[in-house]
């Protein structure tokens, strides 16, 4: 009798062995079949365009295979400036979102569920209206003869209209407003999972309210905060509409440069190369943050279930 073969290998004899194995295989094929549409979709709408983009970036203006699109980016200082602006704006937007979002999420997390839901709806409601509408609304509010300047001058707070739009200020105000929910939702979610007993325990052990927040609550909210920061930062890197409308041509981000190159020069090679570099940098940001989050977990972070 050798029905008990090596551990891990399946016995091939015995009642219905062949049939049962067949059922196994069929089940696995079926499961794979179910995921095929999703896989195809990813390949068609992400894989192929990105590959094509990369392919296009390898041809110069004369349609000859070369790396000139990339070398030009290194040679011309203007490209460096654009990337710097992009990261600058993304970084500042993220900071503003954290500065507004963290206290707000904390406030919501302390409220009874019913009131917190109302607060969340207030955040999400504008989220459901068109991006373009919201951006132009900011233009109306912030421009030279807009609401804020009118009120400010009528109330005598300032005499000459403040330059709130068509510059970095306007871009940051608009982007922070649009990005805030992306920071708030994961942050609020992770704050809600923090057991109030942790805070009670901390204060029972002698921690003042501030100390309990700083030593216990804040570290436990970090996973949600990091998740929100990464989402906001990465979304900002490729953002187009808001900086285009509210920046007034003074704040040039990579996405806007790509648009200009295609619109004015019809140069797909250069535009593609810019896209590829932005994509690579974005992936780099994701990779680094992933490593950092890992590191954080090793150091003992995370909400810990």
């Amino acid at each position: 009798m050798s029905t008990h073969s090596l551990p891990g290998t399946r016995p091939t004899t015995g009642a219905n062995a062949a049939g049962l194995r067949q059922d196994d295989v069929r089940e696995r094929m079926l499961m794979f079949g179910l995921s095929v549409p999703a896989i195809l979709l990813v390949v068609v709408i992400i894989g192929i365009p990105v590959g094509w983009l990369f392919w296009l970036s390898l041809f110069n203006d004369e349609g000859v295979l070369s790396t000139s699109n990339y070398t030009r980016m290194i040679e011309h200082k203007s490209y460096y400036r654009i990337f710097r602006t992009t990261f600058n704006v993304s970084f500042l937007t993220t900071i503003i979102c954290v500065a507004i979002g963290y206290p707000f999420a904390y406030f919501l997390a302390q409220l009874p569920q019913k009131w917190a839901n109302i607060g969340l709806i207030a955040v999400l409601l504008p989220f459901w209206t068109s991006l373009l509408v919201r951006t132009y609304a900011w233009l109306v509010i912030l421009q030279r003869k807009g609401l804020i300047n009118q009120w400010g001058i009528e109330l005598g707070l300032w005499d000459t209209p403040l330059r709130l739009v068509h510059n970095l200020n306007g871009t940051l105000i608009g982007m922070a407003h649009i990005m805030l929910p992306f920071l708030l939702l994961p942050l609020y979610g992770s704050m809600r999972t923090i057991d109030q007993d942790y805070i009670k325990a901390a204060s029972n052990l002698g921690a003042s309210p501030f100390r309990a927040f700083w030593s216990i609550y804040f570290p436990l909210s970090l996973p949600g905060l990091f998740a929100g920061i990464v989402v906001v930062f990465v979304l900002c890197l490729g953002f187009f509409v808001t900086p285009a409308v509210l920046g007034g041509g003074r704040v040039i981000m990579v996405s806007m440069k790509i648009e200009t190159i295609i619109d004015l020069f019809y140069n797909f090679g250069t535009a593609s190369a810019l896209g590829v570099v932005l994509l690579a940098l974005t992936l780099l940001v994701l990779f680094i943050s992933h490593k950092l989050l890992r590191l954080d977990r090793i150091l003992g972070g995370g909400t810990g279930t």
Partner: protein
Amino acid sequence: MADANQINALPITIRGLTKTYGPVFALDHVDLDVRSGEFLTLLGPSGSGKTTLLMVLAGFTRPDHGSALFGDDEVIRMQPHKREVGMVFQNYALFPHMTVAGNIGFPLKLRNVNKATLHQRVESALETVQLEGFGDRQIDQLSGGQMQRVALARAIVFEPRILLMDEPLSALDKKLREHMQIELRHLHEKLGMTTVYVTHDQREALTMSDRIAVINDGKLMQLDSPRRIYDQPANPFVANFIGESTLLPVEHSDGHVSYAGTPVNVSGSESKDGRLLMLRPERLVLLKPGEEADYNTFQGVVKDVVYQGESFLLYVTLMDGADVAIRSVSQRGLLAAVPEVGAQVTLGLHPDETVLIPEGES
């Protein structure tokens, strides 16, 4: 008796403590004295107010009015972090982002204990709860019993003079729970801090406590030693909540007590004028003919026999229709003599174990 590790314990004095939630009294003018160094258990059904009382002592629930003294100090308006009481939470509330040593060292860090002393005290606390060498573990690597010990170590490491525990063993399985009951008891004897322990498990309360405070509907029903709580309940609620019992109405006439016309000898009862007679299943015996002389007797018919492993239960319907239970150990001889359903039996209750209970809240 005086151990080198022993802490100067503090008594707790509670006066007129009241907390309402809408029309409901969670605490209804509670007066309670916890003696210095004793292990006192707050026992009651869920919603009785026992946890509210503990939370008031810890400072997490603000009462409507009343007073609570730790020693001579009024603490009722003191913030929780200034009260210097240790507390073990029901779900342990161990900080998941810190190691075991980080958790236990946290209260010491807050008190600016220097690094060497901190390390030494954390080690000694780990030793006290028998978790030597666990300092570097993460919280999620611990079993339920280990978390319980860490929570305890964290609550005692800063040497509070009062220790509060909120159903700390309820998440453990039965075996481990019984083991931890004995261990907590020993630890209390060793450390000697005044301990207030909340549980809804009467057996746990009887096993561990110096005294038990039975609480119901926000009121203190009885405060006594486990023996007296069980043997001489002050009211029907306590009699029913602790252990099983059947309460029979009795009549009083010129100093004599009788049940359904039969005189009852109540020489063992502290309450001589109680209107209810308490019958506990394990205090009743099945009498053979001729044994009646020493006992108060009750005639009845066997209604049901239930075998429960270590013991068996006999349900007997008395002549006036009341159902009583009698429990007996499953020894071979006793088991062989179990009457059948429908049989006429005589139950006996020794006068020393015959207890009258005042009527009152049930």
